[in-house]
């Protein structure tokens, strides 16, 4: 919904010749804080908990990792202390055999760190529930040139659960390569506008072949390619987090943007970042000649 509004209003702004240029600015620096970047799903694979420290805004290097912390993941029945990856400091691995059970609350406890360097050891914690996933019935592709760029729309066919308030996020893969690899590239939805309805071919993700300025991207569909849609059943807190991240990383225009603010988080004791817990369903579609005809006509 928001993207529709932004599209309309940005188009109006195009009429007024506005320009953008890079400028240099001096910004104040705040106290460093712990940043937790962690995701846990119902998939059977390794997951990562990445701990780092915040840095000043114009720092041009990766943020310093936090090594040697004690990181424990638990649900109501079991718990596990995570090992740090020897080759990648700051990365703590949740092994594939630590399985996610639907309906359980997953809690991440972090201790044994002293971010503010005052000699006192700190601890942090974050929790989230793993919900059962809503399933994809099937997907299809359509070709879209109406919005200035040229892209494929991935259309979803599914049914929303009428008994629950559901939140979703979507990402897309081309030949098993994740295209929407950032939170700001996810598409996300809240069922308050379509609770319990059939979802019949609604566009939930895109693969852009040519940008609105005419530049071609690295993605160009060929016969035999596989396009995969991943539908994540997430929760309300993560939904608001994605929304805030997209506002904070998107274009800010005086007409439509409010004052910037910190994105919400779910980690205690002043740490930033997000521990997200969600379940996943995927479906794929093979790119056939009929599909390519939509574009090449």
């Amino acid at each position, binding site marked *: 919904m928001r993207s529709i509004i932004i599209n309309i209003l940005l*188009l109006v702004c*195009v009429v007024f010749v506005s320009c953008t240029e890079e400028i240099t*600015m001096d910004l104040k620096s705040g106290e460093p804080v712990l940043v937790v*970047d962690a995701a846990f799903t119902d998939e059977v694979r390794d997951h990562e908990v990445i701990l780092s420290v*915040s840095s000043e805004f114009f720092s041009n290097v990766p943020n310093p990792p936090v090594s040697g912390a004690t990181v424990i993941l638990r649900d109501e029945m079991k718990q596990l202390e995570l090992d740090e990856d020897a080759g990648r400091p700051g990365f703590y691995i949740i092994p594939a055999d630590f399985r996610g059970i639907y309906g359980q609350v997953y809690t991440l406890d972090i201790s044994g760190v002293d971010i503010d360097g005052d000699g006192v050891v700190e601890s942090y914690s974050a929790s989230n529930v793993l919900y059962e996933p809503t399933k994809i019935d099937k997907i299809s592709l359509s070709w879209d040139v109406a919005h200035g760029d040229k892209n494929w729309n991935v259309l979803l066919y599914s049914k929303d659960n009428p008994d629950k308030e559901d939140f979703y996020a979507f990402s897309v893969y081309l030949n098993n390569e994740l295209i929407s690899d950032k939170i700001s590239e996810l598409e996300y939805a809240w069922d308050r506008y379509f609770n319990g309805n059939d*979802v*019949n071919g609604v*566009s939930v993700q895109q693969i852009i072949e040519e940008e609105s300025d005419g530049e071609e991207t690295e993605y160009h569909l060929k016969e035999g390619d596989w396009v995969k849609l991943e539908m994540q059943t997430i929760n309300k807190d993560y939904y608001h987090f994605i929304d805030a991240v997209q506002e904070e990383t998107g274009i800010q225009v005086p007409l439509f*943007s409010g004052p910037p603010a910190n994105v919400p988080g779910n980690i205690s004791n002043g740490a930033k970042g997000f521990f997200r817990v969600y379940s996943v369903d995927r479906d794929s579609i093979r790119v056939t000649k009929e599909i390519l005809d939509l574009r090449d006509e």
Partner: protein
Amino acid sequence: MYKKIVFIVFIISFINTKGYSVPPVLSDNVVLSGYIKDGQNGELLIGATVYFKELKTGTISNLYGFYSFSVEPGKYTIEYVYMGFKTVTRELEINTDVSLNIELFQETESLQEVVVSGKKLDANVRDPQMSVQKLQSKDVKSVPALMGEVDVIKVLQLMPGVQATSEGASGFSVRGGNPDQNLILLDEAIVYNAGHMLGFFSVFNNDAIKDVKLYKGDVPASSGGRLSSLVDVRMNDGSNKKIEAKGGIGLISSRLTLEGPIIKDKTSFIVSGRRTYADLFLPLASDEGAKDSKLFFYDVNAKLKHVINNNNRLYLSTYMGRDVFKDVNSKMDFGNQTYTLRWNHVYNPKLFSNITFIGSKYDYKLGTNEEASEFTWKSRLRDYSLKLDYNYYLNPNNTLSFGLQSIYHTIKPGTAQGEGDDALFSKVDVPDSNGLEHGVYISNSQKFGSRLNVKYGLRLSGLQNIGKGTIFRFDDDYDVVGEDKYGSGELFNSYWGLEPRVGASYILNNTTSLKSSYSRTRQYIHLATNSTSTTPLDVWFMSSPNIKPQVCDQFSVGLFKNFADNTVETSVETFYKDMDNSIDFKDHPDLLLNDKMEGEVRTGESWAYGVELLVKFRKERFSGWLGYTWSKSWRKFDEINNGEKYLSPYNHDHDISVVLNHKLGKRSQLSLNWVYFSGAPFTAPNGRMFVGGDIIPLYSKRNEEQLPDYHRMDLSFTIKNKKKEGRKWEGEWNFAVYNLYGRKNAWSIYFEQDEDDPYKSTAQKTYLFQFVPSVTYNFKF
């Protein structure tokens, strides 16, 4: 509490000084009254001075051109004065009530005449009214404008104490207040969104406007409902002498006005229309999608005036305007409509009344045409109002005003619906909101001797929430814990409050006075907007059990001095505003199509203070003004910025405006304006983090950084075609340049992750208009 004491002291001092005044008022006084008009077209003149030379005092005409003054029977020399018009002097023997209508004629453009009429043009010194700026259509016309579109709101933004909310916007902030705290009236109807094209042009067609008054404070007791200002726009009535037309053709819009009598001297009409064709330029846009789009706005002002007899006049006015935007996939349109029917009735030479029926509407519609997710979204606000105003010219020293107003507001904040069988979206319907807003007032303007002029008044205002309606109940975390539904017509909540308004002016000498005022204002309807500049999609919401009315106490003191035979007016005013129950929103609020929107609101306090300096001059060849404002505007909300005070987004430490007009010859004029103001505050990051592949900024305090200072110069040159004998057609060319030296003033600054280097962020500045020339041809016949 303190304010109540101040008010009571004022009342007591009035009682004590009752014995102070002047020649005892005899009960067999007689009254001179009537209407003051423009002799060329019959337009009633607002604020014209009626001066009794022998008494060294007089009165002014009211908003409908009516004046009334009581005197002892005798012989008097009376001067009728109005800026820009030749003074008319009458010698009269007044032994009974006399009704005298006067016609004044405009000064002709002549280099030899110096436009001065002596001490009677010192209204700005004598009148206890302060914090007010008055503009006429011709003042607005001479100021260079963006793309040639002369605009009364943009000229108001050049006054001290008034700033645009962002470059080119129609939204404005008065003395640090929010843009929704300005009451904008067009012939007494409230205009909710005064901007076309996202605010780059205002809804006011200068050709249809007679008079505009901006009250930055010291709002008269007859007005209420907004905290920061009153912008009272009055339309022309239409010439009742002969048919006239005028218009203009410009780069992006054209306008035409037709006015004239239907029955000479009795009934007149005026119709003004305007349409842009900005979409002509779209094929030049680089964006493919923009090429097939439609983008335009139009507006129409129409008015009918009928003089039944000298004591009864009827006016019917209307405004209709619409902005339309359409492209292959989406469409949007929005606009205001206002209707007013007014009846002026003079009961007796001392009692003038006006009764008005008003209807107002603001609505917008947007939608997409995409298959499978086609939807439309509508929102609408409607007002129906009744207003009664009386002016009672009790005696030479006292002029009373009293009256009442009730407005029925009905708001449909938003309805969105999917179209078609496969619609993904079910209907989203934010419940209607209805309320009755009332105001009752009485005020008196009293002279004590020849030096002291005091006005004091009281307004009682209130809001009643009325069903149908749904109010959600929230807990301390702003989560919904219940809802209450109310049936149609059910009154379920009310807020009432007193708004005292007092002001005084003390004349130090013929050209100098000291003025001070205190006013309390209350606001019951607020704009849900998260951007500093308002957008057409913003929705108004009323106070309710969850949202208290906003309240403002404003004090101001000023020194007013005229020089050089009143051709140079100067003033210094300082103000302090203290506001309670101020409204702001939580971080990243969800304001659109949200029935629980009240849960996004946060309340707190705000305050502003400053000094305004204005020098206005009107000489033979040069005229214009210089304004300087220093001000600060603060907010403090428990749940925002960790409860610490932060600068309002409308804070500008310094604001300088220079407007200069230079008559080069009989037919041409050069105008220049230069604007400077300190950059608006903004929130900049003080750190960053990596989460999920994104660089996300971290912020500590709100509005701690400042955008670069803004300044620009505009220039315009107007040349009139030689007037040919016997030819009615008059034309003139106007050439203007906006932002002459092309400064890249920052419209916004945002931060972006570098495309190539994922660890790098850069600061980007967006700027708009740089050196925009325009050509306009204006005509009249």
